[in-house]
């Protein structure tokens, strides 16, 4: 009996720590803020929060219980693009927080060209990602 109680407590504690830290990570990076700003409707903030929680729970389901929704193949491309947009936002937020672009541009004195630089970064990210998935032997 005591074994189960401790297991449940430990599981809850672990989940709490991970959930809180991953949310803190996104919030501090400003990813969620940027996405909410993009939607221009911050009065629906509660729905955004609920969808984040549901998304996390769904991934837990598939990870631990072999859960599948089945026959949603036609959603592959839109969902792939959505997932990519989120990851792209996270990585740019990281780049931005670490000041990589502004440091490079200010040091070299080419502030005028900054958007050209961003476009290169963007294409580099796509190229790197495609290489990773398409060239056999990378994973």
């Amino acid at each position: 009996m005591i074994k189960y109680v401790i297991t449940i407590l430990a599981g809850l504690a672990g989940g709490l720590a991970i959930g809180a830290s991953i949310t803190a990570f996104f919030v501090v990076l400003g990813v969620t803020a940027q996405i909410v700003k993009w939607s221009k409707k911050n009065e629906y903030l509660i729905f955004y929060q609920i969808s984040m929680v549901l998304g996390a729970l769904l991934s837990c389901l598939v990870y631990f219980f072999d859960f599948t929704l089945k026959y949603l193949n036609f959603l592959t491309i839109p969902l792939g693009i959505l997932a990519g947009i989120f990851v792209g936002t996270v990585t740019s937020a990281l780049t931005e927080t670490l000041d990589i672009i502004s440091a490079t541009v200010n040091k070299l004195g080419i502030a005028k060209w900054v958007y050209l630089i961003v476009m290169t970064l963007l294409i580099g990210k796509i190229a790197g990602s495609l290489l990773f998935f398409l060239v056999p032997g990378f994973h």
Partner: protein
Amino acid sequence: MVHEEVYFQFKPFYNKQPEEKAYLGDFIEMTASHEIRQQIERIPVFPEGISKPVRLTSVQVIGLIKQEVSNISVIPIGESSALYQPVKQEKENPLLVFLRVAFSMLLLFFGSALAIMYFHSDVNMNEAHRMFYYLISGEKVSSPILFSVSYSIGIGAGIFIFFEIYNKIKDKDNPGPLELEMHQSEKELRDYLRDQEGKNQI
């Protein structure tokens, strides 16, 4: 003579070349009647011009004005000191600019390509994609190419959204997060130089 109150504040920028004679009117804006304004604006501050960054304080400005014009009270508004730099006139070598831009582009292109690969192997992205594909389709495949490719394109779209490039295309003067960041670091540098210059003068 009527007693007049003159309010002044520092201009944010100085826009004269290094050898040009600098008058008080180049540094401050003020409210004053026409004659007094003309008198104050013509007060020479640096007759030889400025070649390195200089710091002006409200006390110095008040002193200068009081020397020249009597019977007025001078009241500063806003910041109590400001740092001014002469405009750099040297023409930049376009080849050098091109090289610098090309260098940054190469650096960021290969850097970001490698970084995203590091990230993908670090978090075992392929396994995650396999699982996600299983979630939506119920099929277990070794590499869900379709999902991965659309995901890759999505990364580009995500960066596009984060840096608000769509705003940039619509209106060139709209500052994105990048401009704000650069402005912030420039401002911090200016503040540092101003305070440092003040330390040297004491």
